[in-house]
């Protein structure tokens, strides 16, 4: 067998670095591909996809009231994505944001229920925020501790923690915190626990944007961020350089959990005003994809969480106007994530076809 016939017809080679403009073009192209694929289910219901996408955009952005609702969806998504970024940078697969959000919200609710109306509004809000951060941090610390100490699989650990937090909410909702017996509803909190509004939207959006800047600086300009990056690239290098890997792991998970807890506080005090099992509503899971697709870049997270919020809010309007089931939002989001995940391949790898000249040389 000659050398040439053993060279495969198609092979892959890693690219060094792609022209950023070209890479951007591929990413935008993948979004368009997703929109085209996403129009298939829309057409199945008999609606015109162009019109449907028009309704989604108009229904999420065209009026101040729609815009406010879209921003409300985007805030916790953005905050959670920021929280996950340092973990993923460390290659610590924290998929427990959902649980950290929920447990943070549980801790904040405790104070909202017991202190609401008894102390001034700024004080109670501060207490709730701190409680949420501590609660979320604890929920992040546990998997971090076991990973650092015993190398327990963190993906599976954090996954279990989500359902434990959710179970606790279910218990509180139907037990100690239940309002009228049998309702399974925790009564609305006192008005003093409501976050103030700025431009008609809860002030959480300012907190989220401030966190974007802080997280960007933390990840790129601080010693902590550097340590996290080294551990992510090579655990052995980090150890050799004398870093306290175990402590860094736990520290990062506490930080991540605490920020998720803050997200839980923002949902609670800015929007929900009571605690129930639908509080986080999958935001912790969606945030993981947002974080990853943004390549852990805090500023790109704003764009991607906004995009997903637009689809979520817009599809509700779509349901009212054209009768397309609002579950189409999940399908379109799913396809969008698939396409954006897949397109990175074409940015990182080159497909090389066997050249004729190779044959001649080797023969």
């Amino acid at each position, binding site marked *: 067998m000659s050398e040439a016939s053993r060279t495969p017809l198609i092979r892959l080679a890693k690219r060094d670095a792609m022209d950023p403009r070209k890479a951007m073009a591929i990413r935008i192209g993948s979004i368009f591909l997703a929109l085209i694929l996403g129009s298939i289910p829309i057409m199945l219901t008999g609606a015109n996809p162009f019109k449907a996408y028009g309704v989604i955009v108009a229904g999420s952005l065209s009026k101040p009231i729609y815009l406010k609702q879209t921003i409300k969806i985007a805030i916790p998504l953005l905050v959670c994505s920021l929280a996950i970024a340092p973990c993923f940078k460390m290659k610590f697969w924290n998929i427990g944001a959902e649980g950290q959000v929920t447990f943070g919200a549980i801790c904040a609710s405790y104070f909202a229920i017991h202190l609401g109306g008894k102390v001034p509004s700024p004080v109670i809000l501060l207490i709730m925020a701190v409680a949420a951060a501590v609660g979320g941090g604890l929920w992040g610390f546990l998997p971090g501790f076991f990973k650092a100490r015993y190398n327990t699989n963190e993906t599976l650990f954090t996954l279990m923690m989500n359902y434990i937090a959710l179970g606790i909410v279910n218990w509180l909702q139907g037990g100690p915190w239940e309002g009228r017996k049998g309702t399974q509803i925790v009564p609305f909190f006192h008005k003093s626990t409501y976050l103030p509004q700025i431009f008609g939207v809860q002030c959480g959006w300012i907190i989220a944007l401030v966190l974007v800047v802080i997280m960007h600086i933390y990840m790129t300009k601080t010693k902590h961020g550097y340590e996290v990056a080294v551990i992510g690239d090579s655990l052995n290098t980090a150890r050799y350089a004398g870093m306290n890997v175990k402590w860094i792991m736990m520290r990062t998970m506490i930080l991540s959990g605490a920020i998720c807890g803050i997200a839980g506080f923002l949902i609670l005090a800015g929007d929900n005003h009571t605690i129930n099992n639908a509080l986080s509503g999958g935001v912790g899971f969606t945030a993981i994809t947002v974080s*990853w697709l943004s390549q852990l870049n805090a500023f790109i997270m704003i764009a991607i969480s906004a995009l997903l919020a637009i689809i979520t809010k817009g599809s509700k309007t779509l349901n009212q106007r054209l009768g397309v089931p609002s579950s189409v939002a*999940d399908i379109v989001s799913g396809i969008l994530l698939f396409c954006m*995940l897949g397109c990175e391949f074409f940015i990182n790898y080159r497909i090389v076809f066997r050249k004729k000249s190779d044959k001649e040389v080797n023969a």
Partner: protein
Amino acid sequence: MNTLIALIAAAGTYATVLMFGTMGEIITEKSGNLNLGVEGIMYMGGILGLVAANRYEALVGEAASNGFVAIIVAILGAFLAGAVAGLIFSFITVTLRANQNVTGLALATFGTGVAKFIGEVMRNKLGGYVSVSNHLKEAFSLKFMPKFLKDIPVIGPILFNQVHFFYIGIIFAVLLTLFLNKTKAGLYLKAVGESPVTADAAGINITLYKYLATIIGGGVSAIGGMVFTMTTAGCVWIEASLSGIGWLSVALVIFCTWKPMNSLWGSLLFGSLMIMYLWLIVPGFPTEIYKILPYIVTLTVLIITSIRNSKEKQPPASLGVNYFREDR
């Protein structure tokens, strides 16, 4: 004691759902692919199994429809749905090399979305709700074992008073164990999951094994979703009731330490815990706590196995990590 036996017996149907969900994910994870999209896969299986049976009946007419054929059609429908989901996952993670955790979560979103969407579209088309006629419903939840076996104390109600899917699950677990431990293909599959570098050097086609395991695993998990809609949910599509079963199956894989035979009693235990709140009401003890017990138990198992670091109870070594030949 009698309550306990009745509880375990009643948990059988729920356990069957988990059994399939878990065994599917075990097959997938043995190849080193951590598919976190089981929730979406089981949702898709749940609706497409029902739709397949419903369409079959619409095609041949209610009178001519046969229970046995309907079951086969439902299994095939669900399997196909799960296989497609597995194919999407494999394409994105194996061929396009994307991160498995993220892809799995995207698949969970996508799958639940697809299922809810199909459910709603079918409901609108058929007016009211999607279901099958009563004699097919009976065929799906038939407990076919003879009465004298059901009457045996203790083991009778637990082992012989179950739907046929329960027995299919047991047979499948035995076959799967034999496949994984006694056949060349099974050993190759485990090699791929444990050390793809070694397997590749030995000339095993990594891509093929990963694809096949994930596709078949997805199909098997989806059958679990179908069993849920066709038995527990009474052949009616109630989208909220399926929620969380896929994640419970992922938990059960850990609890079983990746062994199909363990999934038999593991799913009975988890199934019992999930319905215990209906049976065992201790005054002052909140029933909701029962529902988090499976997760706490799983977490404990996960922690203990990692502390003891026993070789045979670990996840496949390359679980969740993609294999790039060029990266070696």
